[in-house]
């Protein structure tokens, strides 16, 4: 077991040396892999931040209580007063049926059409502003509770635009995953190609090792390590690029947030995700070289 570990460590060191012997080619390859991996990682970070930002906006959501047609002014005022004392409620604004109609007349442009109606079709509305910092889930609970109040016909949480943003972000997230799959394939090809060239360069060596009884696994090993290392180092570069990008944006973003009195600050790649990025680089590199070497060995005239 110890001998086995030692042997693998030797191969790993050998692969490292192999990469170090062609520093410029290696640096170019690693940078290309790094940029390729940084793209989806950076987009994920951007989407996560937008997501957080919009979650912050959720807290500004308001609940509109549409009152039953037969509710009179006094009853509505009383309900409003009652709700103001409720915990979790910051303010309640009463919009009478008349006020609602006047507003509608002003904004809709259907003024003359409304004149043709015999009565006022609009309900009275209580606009409830929850306390700042209420979570989306708590908002929903509050809405359900308010909907059950006597005299309330319908309670609506005004999150339409936030929902729309969420839907957009979800779409963007999917697009990023699609992009990530494509770019992962690109990394596979980049590593596969450099390993293919390395294999061609060491054609004689492979042939000799085959003739002295090296197994395919033994022949593959240094190439697999080289591919794995390239992917791993490329992943590290990607992580570095994302962090550098964030560093570059942090100042302007907090300045902007400050202007709006918001404590919002950019959130970077979580450490675990960074490690995952590096690990997936390693896995892609390993796979790419596995494909390249396997293909090459199968193609050989030896059997």
């Amino acid at each position, binding site marked *: 077991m110890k*001998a086995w570990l*030692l*042997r693998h460590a030797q191969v790993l060191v050998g692969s490292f040396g192999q990469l170090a012997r062609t520093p410029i080619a290696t640096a170019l390859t690693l940078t290309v892999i790094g940029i390729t991996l940084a793209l989806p990682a950076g987009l994920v970070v951007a989407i996560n931040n937008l997501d957080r930002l919009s979650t912050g906006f959720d807290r500004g959501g308001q609940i509109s209580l549409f009152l039953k047609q037969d509710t009179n002014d006094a009853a509505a005022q009383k309900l409003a007063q009652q709700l103001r004392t409720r915990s979790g409620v910051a303010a309640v604004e009463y919009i009478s049926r008349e006020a609602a109609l006047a507003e509608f007349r002003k904004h809709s442009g259907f003024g003359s059409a409304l004149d043709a109606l015999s009565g006022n079709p609009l309900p009275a509305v209580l606009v409830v502003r929850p306390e700042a910092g209420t979570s989306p889930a708590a908002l929903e609970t509050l809405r359900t509770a308010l909907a059950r109040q006597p005299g309330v016909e319908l309670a609506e949480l005004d999150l339409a635009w936030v929902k729309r943003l969420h839907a957009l972000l979800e779409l963007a997230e999917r697009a990023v995953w699609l992009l990530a799959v494509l770019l992962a394939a690109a990394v596979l090809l980049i590593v596969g190609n450099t390993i293919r060239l390395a294999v061609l360069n060491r054609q*004689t*060596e492979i*042939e*000799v*090792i*085959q*003739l*002295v*009884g*090296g*197994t*395919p696994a*033994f022949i593959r090993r240094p190439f697999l390590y080289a591919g794995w290392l390239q992917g791993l180092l490329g992943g590290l570069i990607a992580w570095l690029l994302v962090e550098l990008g964030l560093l570059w944006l942090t100042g302007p973003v907090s300045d902007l947030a400050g202007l709006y009195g918001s404590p919002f600050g950019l959130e970077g790649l979580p450490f675990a995700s960074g490690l995952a990025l590096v690990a997936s680089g390693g896995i892609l590199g390993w796979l790419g070289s596995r494909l390249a070497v396997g293909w090459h060995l199968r193609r050989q*005239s*030896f*059997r």
Partner: protein
Amino acid sequence: MATDSPMIEFTHVSMRYPLGAGSYYDALRAVSFTVQPGEMVFVTGHSGAGKSTLLRLLTLMERPSRGSIVVNRKNLERLPRRRLPYYRRELGIVFQDNKLLPDRTVYDNVALPLIAAGMDDREIPKRVRASLDLVGLLGKERQFPVVLSGGEQQRVGIARAVVHRPSLLIADEPTGNLDVELSTAIFDLFASLHRHGTTLLIATHDLRQVSRMEQRTLTLQRGELVRDTHA
């Protein structure tokens, strides 16, 4: 019994190379012979007679079109692909162009078959030194092949071929690039391996050395075995 079974047994072995457009070339035609363990056998013949082809069939770089080859009780035809590396570890192969790896030291070149076979790391230096001692190159471990003379390079190739103590040594024109003096040294080396019990099969043009060795000789002519001094 192990000692009774032959080291090599060719039975009606033919090798037909396709030349394209439906034509082909018969490099070996129904060749049959047997080599016993411990024998030293030369294969001679004109250029193109099929010597290299015969050796390539033994090392399984190629498969015969017809006939059967048994080496060390293994029928090569039925050898599964995954057993091929293990079969080759029973052989030592010496090439005309020595096939040393230029970016590895003499030591690393000779150690290659042992490392490929996964031998214990503590055992390897002893074996490599013993093998280099055998070919008279002890002290050259740290050198790279390019700085060695042609004869020295060929001896490193032989050291690599015997380092794992193969039961059968196969050499294809091992002195093709060497002058008379160096050739003599190499053939003497083979003779000493022979005395130590290794079975050798050596393809060569060098009739002077062959007659000097006074060993069994197979002669090929256009793919046919036309003469066997032991038959």
